[in-house]
């Protein structure tokens, strides 16, 4: 059975890589968003078992999305996929409720490790 996933990134290439990395591990049904604002709109309309979220995007960034999801008391697991590899960034997104952080370019083993560790799939 496939799991519904929301993939949020302003780069089509990065969305493609994230989808490929994830689909190597589980069967997924993907919805894509190009920025944080679009992601939140889709989130309110759909039921997702997992969100893959970029941080630096136009319109609304990943930090703001995490804050809003926290305010909505969402329990949908979020994995941040970002090129921002500062330790402080990692601390902040985990404080905002992300279950893990994976550096870009995303590789299937890195994503699989976070998914297994967190027990999402």
């Amino acid at each position, binding site marked *: 059975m496939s799991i519904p996933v929301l993939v949020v990134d*302003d780069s089509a290439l990065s969305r493609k890589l994230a989808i490929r990395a994830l689909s190597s591990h589980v069967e997924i049904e993907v919805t894509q968003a190009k920025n944080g604002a679009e992601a939140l709109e889709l989130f309110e309309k759909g039921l997702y078992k997992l969100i893959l979220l970029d941080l630096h995007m136009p319109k609304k960034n990943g930090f703001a999305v995490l804050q809003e999801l926290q305010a909505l008391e969402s329990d949908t697991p979020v994995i941040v996929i970002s090129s921002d590899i500062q330790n402080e960034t990692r601390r902040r997104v985990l404080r905002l409720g992300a279950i893990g952080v994976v550096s*870009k370019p995303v590789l299937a083993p890195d994503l699989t490790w976070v998914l297994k560790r967190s027990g999402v799939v």
Partner: protein
Amino acid sequence: MNKVMYTEEQIDGLQEIINIAIGKAGAVLAEVLDHFVELSVPKVTIIDSNELSTAFLNLTQGVERLTATRQSFVYSYPGEAVMVFGADSFAAISDLLGYQGVEDQVKQEREFLLEITNMLVTSCLSGMAELLSYEMTFSPPSMIAERVKPSADLGMYARGWSQSLFIQVHFGVEGRDFKSYILAFWPDEALIPMRDDVDRFMEEI
């Protein structure tokens, strides 16, 4: 020479390559300052070289005075990176660097800005070259303007080029009035090899 075009997908690919590279550069700056660095989405455009000056003026809108450094590099073809700092950027973070109370602030500022230029330009562009499986070489950075009003002089680096691949990257320091931009541009001869490299990268990953 005919105009070189990049598809939306190729621009997106190059933008993402640069995005990954600036993440590394941002982490280096954060470590130097021991402070959180704000990154933004990089912009990649192919523009006619006579539009570079306008692009530069648009970028520096709202900046009263700026200081600029320059660093040349070679990646298949020679290119130029210009780093632009708001004139008060050094003062805004001098305490993080332990420079407060130092006598010769002007000398310290020059040294720091040249050092930061070398650090950010090389880690950003080397990161990009690494992803594209190339090596890049750099000249030492030099100061090209100190506390001047923004002007259209940037275009002089592209003299003789018909088109430029123009990259804009912004680094900020959280809670501080630190503004810095890296502008990197390549001549028209580099546009086709670079496009081929981006295609190869996208095929291989």
